[in-house]
């Protein structure tokens, strides 16, 4: 099988794509945003609870999408749960770089991270939007 495809669809991606973790709505929540990919109609709804120490206590999503977007959302929620908001923002930046194909100046992510599985998206530039949809929703929710 082709390397590009194997890099894109690593086992963990296929797994999270088939069975997304943290799928649902977070109750209670105080932050939410919709993510949308106008190219293909994929969409998701992200909800999370930010406590008074600025820690993400719980985070979930629902929606429809391709394996990449579902897996990315699923891995994101796993990664962000329990994180301080400042750290989460650093991870967001690193992740954006990673999927654009540049993993040189990463600050907080490293190869051990499950998020690293999405690096293969760099080989499919039109899929970057799939991988970042959940993250943009997260970023949007922080702004609102």
């Amino acid at each position, binding site marked *: 099988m082709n390397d590009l*495809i194997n890099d894109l*669809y690593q086992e963990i991606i296929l797994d999270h794509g088939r069975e997304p973790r943290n799928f649902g709505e977070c109750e209670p929540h105080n932050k939410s945003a919709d993510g949308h990919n106008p190219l*293909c*109609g994929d*969409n998701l709804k992200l909800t999370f609870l930010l406590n008074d120490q600025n820690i993400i206590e719980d985070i979930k999503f629902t929606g429809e*999408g391709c*394996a990449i977007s579902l897996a990315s959302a699923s891995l994101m929620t796993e990664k962000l749960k329990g994180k301080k908001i400042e750290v989460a923002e650093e991870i967001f930046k690193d992740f954006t770089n990673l999927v654009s194909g540049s993993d040189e100046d990463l600050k907080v992510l490293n190869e051990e991270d499950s998020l690293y599985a999405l690096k293969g998206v760099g080989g499919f530039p039109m899929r970057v939007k799939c991988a970042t949809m959940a993250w943009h929703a997260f970023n949007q929710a922080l702004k609102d």
Partner: protein
Amino acid sequence: MDHSKTLNLNVRKDFPILSKKILEKKDLIYFDTAASAQKPNTVIDETNDFYKNHYSNVSRGVHTLSVESTFRYEDARKKVQKFLNARSENEIIFTKSATEGINLVAQTFYDKFMQKGDEVILSLIEHHSNLIPWFFLRDKYGVVLKFANIQPSGEIDIDHFNSLFTNKTKIVSLTHLSNVFGTELNEKAISICKDKNVPILLDGCQSAAHLKIDVQKLSCDFFVFSGHKTYGPAGIGVLYGTENLLSEMPPYQGGGGMIGDVSLEGASYAELPAKYEAGTPPLVEAHGLGIAIDYMNKIGLDNIIEHENEITKYAFNKLNEIDFIEIHGGDNKRNSIISFNIKNIHSHEVSSFLDVEGIAIRAGHHCCQPLMKHLGVNSTARLSFGVYNSLEEVDKFVIALHKCKEFFNK
């Protein structure tokens, strides 16, 4: 691999991009012609030649290059006129795209013939480009939009369509060939409009290179298409309209080239077709479209259609045999387009997987979100064929589909 029959047409060599290697090793199999067609050598070479030997602005200067450019531009108009069998060159307006053509008609037809509460009939299978321009009329002026239902086959439900007319119905706008199902508009829809004396616009984006178009026989009032889907360059489209309607409707955009006489107090407008062509037009692109029409004529539109029909039927039958494939629409005739899903695999996965095999298909909502919602999917995979495709490519595609299924179910 049972391509028992080989087809007569083999024009692959006319299209330079088809010798490209995808990811440096795979032959390109281009099944995305409905999104945009590839260009034959002649179109590319003539674009080149225009810039290298004849280029300047049109209709403005009196020098030699201006003559050469203007004559190429107007010659393209004649070619389009013949291609559509319009009565006169005055009925051929060059636009930048089909989308612009529909926007032009929606706005200027409203300006002349409609008011608040008047009605427009569309359908559920329309492309966003044949929806949003009418949505604008609804939002801005209180025009009422009605949508014909579709049957499970993907065709418009003619009885329902017929029932939508009232004495406030001012215009109908329908796709001539669905970019999702590949099915042709039922002629009855047009004859109903004629009976009721309501003008009809046909969105011919998908039909212009895949059906034989005769606007007089079709008896449509407007017809739009894009050059880039008919083997022509990007950046050029065509609006056909009857001289009657185009003369009555006001101009759309204002600027150089569309005026008669201008003073600070007001302006008179140029005759058709210049009236609707404000500013420097996409002149080289218009010429390129003319060359694309020459190309299709040389191959013969009948031959092209037969060729595509063979491939479409072949592919349809192949896909129909595969149990994990769901084809959208019924068993009625498809023209160069088939939409499908692999059960439980998102169309993006299918397209990315095929991509590394060198196969370009389209995945997404195909700018038909209302139809997707109706079908209960958020995206489909779409195969679409052009004159350069072959049965062998379909065979390779089917093998790749099986590999794809296997990969994602591993």
